[in-house]
C-alpha cells in the first residue's frame, strides 16, 4: 500500500522508528516535531493519514486534532500516546481521532491500524455484499455462503467475519479485534481472541481445500486467498 502520511511526533527515536518502517512499507512520510507545525501542514496539504502524538511541544496533540476537525479536515487521524488509561482512549476518540494506539507499540500493530484507517476512508460506498474468494456475505439478509453452501454462523461469528471481510488481505491484530469488534479495551488473557478465531475458522475453513483465515505469528490474523 502506498500513500502520504504526516507523522507528528517530537520523540526522535520513535519518529525514526515509525518513519523508517512506513517508508519500507511504501509510504511517503512527512515528519514534524511540533504541534503547531503539524496543524499547519495537515490543514494546508493533502495527506492520506495523520499519526499524531499526544504530548507535543507548541500545541498538544488533542488540541491539534480538535482544531483540524473544527476546520473541516477529514484526514484519518491515528493518535499515539503514552497515556494508557482507558479514559485516555475515549477522550482521544471524542476529540476527533479515528484510532488510538498506546505506547509502547509494535510497528506491525501501527501498520495494520494505519492501513485499516486509510482503507476505511476509501470505502465510503455502501456495500451490501462482501466477498473473499468463494465466501459471500450478504449484509441485508445476514447470510453467509462458501462455495454456494450456507454457513451457519452465530451473530458474534458473523460480526467477526464481517470485520475480516471489510479488512480483506490486511493484517488485523488482536487488539484491533478487541477494540473494534467487541469494544473491549484490554484483555490480559489474549487467548480469548484465539478462541473466537478458532471457532470461526472451524466453520469457515473446515472441509475446504484453501484455508482463508491465517494466523500471523506474534502479529495477528489475515483473511485472504493467498496463504
Amino acid at each position: 500500500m502506498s500513500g502520504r502520511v504526516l507523522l507528528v511526533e517530537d520523540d526522535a527515536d520513535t519518529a525514526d522508528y515509525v518513519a523508517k518502517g512506513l517508508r519500507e512499507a511504501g509510504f511517503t512520510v512527512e515528519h514534524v516535531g511540533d504541534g503547531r507545525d503539524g496543524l499547519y501542514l495537515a490543514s494546508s496539504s493533502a495527506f492520506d493519514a495523520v499519526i499524531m502524538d499526544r504530548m507535543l511541544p507548541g500545541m498538544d496533540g488533542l488540541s491539534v486534532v480538535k482544531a483540524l476537525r473544527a476546520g473541516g479536515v477529514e484526514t484519518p487521524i491515528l493518535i499515539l500516546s503514552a497515556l494508557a488509561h482507558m479514559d485516555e482512549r475515549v477522550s482521544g476518540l471524542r476529540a476527533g481521532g479515528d484510532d488510538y494506539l498506546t505506547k509502547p507499540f509494535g510497528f506491525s500493530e501501527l501498520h495494520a491500524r494505519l492501513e485499516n484507517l486509510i482503507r476505511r476512508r476509501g470505502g465510503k460506498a455502501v456495500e451490501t455484499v462482501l466477498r473473499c474468494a468463494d465466501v459471500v456475505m450478504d449484509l441485508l439478509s445476514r447470510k453467509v455462503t462458501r462455495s454456494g453452501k450456507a454457513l451457519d454462523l452465530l451473530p458474534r461469528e458473523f460480526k467477526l467475519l464481517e470485520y475480516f471481510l471489510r479488512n480483506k488481505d490486511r493484517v488485523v491484530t488482536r487488539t484491533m479485534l478487541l477494540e473494534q469488534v467487541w469494544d473491549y479495551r484490554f484483555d490480559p488473557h489474549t487467548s480469548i481472541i484465539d478462541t473466537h478465531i478458532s471457532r470461526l475458522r472451524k466453520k469457515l475453513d473446515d472441509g475446504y481445500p484453501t484455508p482463508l483465515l491465517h494466523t500471523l505469528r506474534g502479529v495477528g490474523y489475515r483473511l485472504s486467498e493467498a496463504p
Partner: protein
Amino acid sequence: MASPLGHLRRLAPTTFVTLAVLLVLAASAAALVVVYRTGGSIITQRERAEALAERDLLAEVDQEQGLATLVSSVARRARFSAGGERYGLFSESGAPLAGDLMRYEPGFTDADWRLVRVHGTDPASIHVVTTVMPDGSRLVVGRDRSNIRRFERSILEGFAAAFLIVAVAGFVAGYIVNARILQRVDAIALTAERIAAGDLSARTPVANPNDPFGRVAASLNAMLERIEELMTGMRTVTDSLAHDLRSPLTRMKGALARALYDGATEAERLDAIEDAHSQVDHVLATFSAMLDIARAETGLSREMMQPVDVAALVEEVADFFTPIIEDAGQSLSEDLGAPAIALVHEALLRQAIGNLLHNAAIYAGEGAAVTVKVETLGPSIQITVADTGHGVPREHRGRMHERFVRLDPARGTGGSGLGLAIVTACAKLHDGTLSLEDNGPGLRAVLQISRSHARV
C-alpha cells in the same frame, strides 16, 4: 514545655482571650458612663426641687414673720448646712444680711437653678435660685457640687473595682481555658508527632465525641485509619508488584537467551521471541490494570461517565465470553430483564463484568453452570455472576478483593491477580459494592452499582 517558665508562658492567654477581656472592660466602662450621666441628672433634679421648696418655705417665713425672723432662719440653716446647701440674704443694695454667701454676685440676679461662680474665701461654682422679697431684699438658695462629686467618686471606685474583678477573673479564666485546650491540643499534636515518627497506629483518645475537640479527634482518627489502610495497601501492592513482575521478566530473559543461543534453529528463535513478546504483553497489561484501578479508586474517571444500558452491555460481554466458558466445559445462561439505564464508566464496567465471567471460566471447573443476571433494585442495579463450581472457602472470600491475591498459587493461570481488584475499584467508582457469596455450591459474585450517581 521544657522549663516550668516556658510552660507558664505557653499557658499565657492568647491574643483572643486578651481581646475578650478588653472588650468586657470597654463594655463595663460604657455602662458606667450611662449610669453616671443618668445618676448625675437625677441628683441635680432632686437638688433643684429641694432648693425650690426651701426657697418657698423661707419666703413664707418672711411673709408671715417678717425680715428679722427670716434673717435668723437663714443664718441658722447656713450654720447647720451639711449636704452642700448654701444660703445668702442680701439687702436691696447687695449688702449681706445673713447666710454663708457673703458677696452678691451679678449672676445671682433672676437665677433659676443657674450655675454661678462665687468668689471670696471659698470660691466654687454653685447652682442657685434667687427670689426678690416684697421689701426688696434678695434670697439666694444654692447647692454646691459636693453631692455630685461624691457620686462621681463612688462611680469611679465602682468602675475600678469592676475593672479589677473582670481583669483578674478574665485572665484566670483565660489561663484555665487555655490549659484545658492545650491539654487536648497536645494530645492531638502528640499523635501527629508519633505518626510523623513512623508509628502509623497512633490514635488520639476521644473523651467525648460530641464536644469540638472530640469531633476533631474522631475525624482525625478516621483519617488516620484510612491513611494506614491505604499505606498498608500500597505496601502490599509494591511488594506484590515487585514479586509479580519478577516472574514474567525472568521468563522473558530466559526466552531471549534461547533466541540468542548460537545453535538455535530459526523456528526455535521465533518461538522464543514470541514467548518474550507475550511476557512483555503480560507486564504491560499488569501495568495498565494497575493504572485503571488507581484512577478508579481516586475517582478521577468520574468525568468519563455516561448513561448506558447495563443489561445490553452485560449481554455483549457475556456473548464475548461465551466461547471460553463453553471451552471450559461450562454452560452460560443469561437473565437480563428490562433495559437498565445508569450513569456508568462503560469501559471499566465492561472490564469488571468480563473479569467476573473470566474468573468463573477459570475457577469454577468443568460442568459448572454459570448464570449472569441483571436486576434493577430501587436506586441500584445488581449484576450477579454465579456458578455452581468449586466455590471459595469463607475464610478466603475477604482476601479475594485485594490486589495480586491468587488463592491457589499452584493453579497459577497467568492472570495478573488484579481481576477482582478491578471489579472492586469499579464498584467503588459507581458508589456500589462487590460481595462474594456462597452459591451452595459455587460462588456468587454480586456487583451492585448506583443508578443515579450522586457524587459527581
